[in-house]
């Protein structure tokens, strides 16, 4: 990484970065409050039928045909290509819904169709999945906080959870602003980002801790700066390789995991930023100090550790 300028003064701009983060988080929260998340079938309950056509259908005709056939609250949208159509219905369970929808569409002779999938989620199951998902997210954050507090120190723990919360809120915010479907796979992506971003934050924290113990001089700000510079190369390369595979998923993974890939792309991007700016920023804001990391007995071991 010698090609990269080794002394970027990250912390000089920490105020600006802080404002940007706060602005993004606020924007996300506002959007979440106003627009809310466009929850997918998994969480709302309902019925969904995906049909693939031989030739592209006219969506409006399709909608009226289905309504004529007696379906209520029909929404029809393309899914991935103009040959694939997603039909959503607000109705209870019916064992024949897939065939019924096909029959209604086939009543117009112009269309040749095939059933790709049919899904029904009961309202109560949807609600439970929603609760479980939220609980899972909180549980993940809670456990991480405990683990980091135990392995590092309380201030680090607060900093990494702040970074994670920052990432999650911005991801959710983006899904809310763009009104993308938030379903179970996207939830999985959010949790994966918690894991990923945490990974990043821990690597940085690890170096900050090490430098606080090793470097005898310098303000906390200097030490954080040095640490960020030292880990910058690794942070960028890992993010890059991860983004590379995510782009592969995004472009070639198909429509079903499209939103999953989007969530991860955004998450990894924000996660990389947050491990540089949010975690370190919060640490400095809490006046992290050499004394916080002094562990008298262990100090000797660390010195011995050096080859």
């Amino acid at each position, binding site marked *: 990484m010698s090609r990269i300028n080794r002394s970027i003064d990250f912390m000089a701009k920490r105020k600006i970065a802080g404002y940007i983060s706060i602005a993004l988080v606020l924007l996300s929260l506002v959007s979440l409050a106003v627009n809310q998340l466009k929850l997918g079938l998994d969480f709302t309950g309902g019925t969904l039928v995906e049909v693939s056509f031989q030739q592209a259908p006219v969506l409006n005709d399709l909608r009226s045909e289905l309504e004529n056939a007696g379906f209520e609250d029909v929404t029809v949208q393309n899914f991935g290509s103009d040959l694939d159509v997603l039909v959503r219905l607000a109705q209870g369970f019916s*064992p024949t819904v897939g065939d019924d929808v096909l029959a209604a569409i086939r009543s117009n002779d112009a269309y040749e169709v095939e059933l790709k999938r049919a899904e029904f989620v009961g*309202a109560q199951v949807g609600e439970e999945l929603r609760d479980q998902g939220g609980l899972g997210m909180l549980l993940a954050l809670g456990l991480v906080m405990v683990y980091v507090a135990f392995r590092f120190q309380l201030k680090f723990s607060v900093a990494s959870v702040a970074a994670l919360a920052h990432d999650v809120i911005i991801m959710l915010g983006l899904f809310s602003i763009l009104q993308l479907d938030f379903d179970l796979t996207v939830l999985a992506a959010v949790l994966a980002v918690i894991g990923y971003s*945490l990974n990043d934050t821990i690597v940085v924290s690890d170096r900050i801790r090490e430098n606080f113990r090793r470097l005898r001089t310098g303000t906390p700000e200097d030490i954080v700066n040095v640490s960020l510079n030292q880990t910058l190369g690794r942070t960028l390369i890992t993010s890059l390789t991860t983004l590379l595979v995510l782009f592969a998923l995004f472009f070639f993974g198909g429509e079903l995991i499209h939103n999953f890939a989007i969530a991860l792309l955004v998450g990894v991007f924000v996660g990389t930023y947050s491990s540089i700016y949010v975690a370190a920023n919060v640490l400095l804001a809490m006046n992290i100090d050499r004394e916080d990391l002094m562990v008298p007995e262990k100090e000797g071991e660390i010195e011995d550790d050096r080859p």
Partner: protein
Amino acid sequence: MINKYPLWKYLLILVVVAMGVVYALPNLYPDDPAVQLTPQRGSVQISERHISQVTRALDKAGIEYFGEEIENNNGIIRFKHDEDQLKAKTLIQEALGQDFVVALNLAPTTPQWLVDLGAGPMKLGLDLRGGVHFLMEVDMKEALAQRNEVYISEMKTLLRSERLRYRRITREEGVISIRFTNEEYLDQAKSLLRKEFSDFVQTERTEGEELFLDLTLSEQAARDIEDYAVKQNLTTLRNRVNELGVSEPLVQRQGRNRIVIELPGVQDTAAAKRILGATANLEFRLEASSDASVLDTEEYPFRDNENRRAVLERDIIITGNSVSNAQSAFDENGRPQVNIDLDTQGGKLMNRATRNNIRRRMAVLFVEHKVKTHIAEVEGEKVEKRVPYVEKHIISLATIQSALGNSFRITGLDSPSESSELALLLRAGSLAAPIYFVEERTIGPSLGKENIELGVTSVQIGMALVVIFMLAFYRVFGLIANVALTVNLILLAALMSMMSATLTLPGIAGIVLTLGMAVDANVLIFSRIKEEMQNGQSPQMAIHAGFERAFVTIFDANLTTLLVAVILFAVGTGPVKGFAVTLSLGILTSMFTAIMVTRAQVNLIYGGRQLKKLSI
């Protein structure tokens, strides 16, 4: 000696990698589309004769097949083309008749030597294979209510036989109330019921002049009943699924009152749903004699003509639950009928009832438990309301010519398909408590195939991008990391195959993500080595320090990610669980490869040499 591994470490790594290759290998052999033949009853043995019967039919239709074999009393016939599979299934079912269940199957093509080692391919999830996933909920309230009804009639009989006079027994929301007119009877009933019905908690209550004894099931007893209902339904559903002829079905309890059913490769999902959710049963009753009291009779309509009705006795001779076997067939006029065999107890009851009532008429009642679902608005929120109701129709009313025994036939059915469905339901048993579909996911076979292709493409492209990038950026060390990455992928596939974990589309996404993240550990190590060299360390020292220092960081970072993956596994369902599994396994294998496999390579290449600089 610095940067040297002892021989055993190299050997260990080699053994692990070799085992990985062996156990991952079966995944490279694609499954054959096949049809599986299973005898309807255990007593029937499948033989060469059956197989040749089938192959003759296939030859006649010009369908290409191969590898027909018999294993564990199951016949397997493989096909060259996917599209032949469905056609062949219908043909085979016709050729063999009803004694066999014919199911679509994917037959593994793993070579024998791998099978002997216990290796096999990963299972594909429904989203990759096509099929149906159901989540069904057992109506616990109804299960309790049904059980309480039985208790009430038992209590009535008991109180009557002990000559304890009571006014009335009612049931409301799980509380059975018995009304007495005098204290003495109440006290006697109390001690009697306490002895005979110990599962109930008793409370006394007075309303004006009236004395009430309220009986509530204890929590433990209620839970036992619910548990029993779910287990009973599970058995019935398993039987039904087996009757449907699906290979590798999954029928499993989930949580307190739910049952998951997964049927891979099912094409006719509507039929599957109808049969799984069906609650059809039969009741056999005598027609009421003209002088019977109104209290002991009930009137039901005929099924083929709602306006025709008949008055039947309230007492049921037997229900469909006493049926031990049922087969659909045709009578001499070509109309559908069901031949029924009763179990011993049922046969006795039937014989006793018919022996004494020759010349009277007996009715067969077709009973269906149905549910009306409608969406109601409660306090501004949409809530699904389910109202269960029972439909009973007479399908036949015939004069008893002679005493009936264990086997007889019933007629009056609409169509052959109805008679075979009724026969199936009678064989499989009825549901102990009403059951509802609360979730359903049907994936068409074309989408499954599409998903596999997309998944494989994205893994290949993702892998290629990472490999090229690492090579360009780290040269020799990049190559080393790429070898480790490949080993990682192989080990991951091997682990998943050994655990016979299910691969889903999010699971593939998990693999792709692991690929991206797996190089992280190597990047950490390499960055550290570079840094040490910039600090003036010699290359050998830098390598040593780089691995040493990076280890703590790698360990911390991976452990926390693993933590999150475990939570994901705990709260997720279905596909999300698949993602969690690949993610956690990927973390474990990548720790091994990024640290051990990389180190071994570095040691082999650079260990013990005089180095001026590193290609990093």
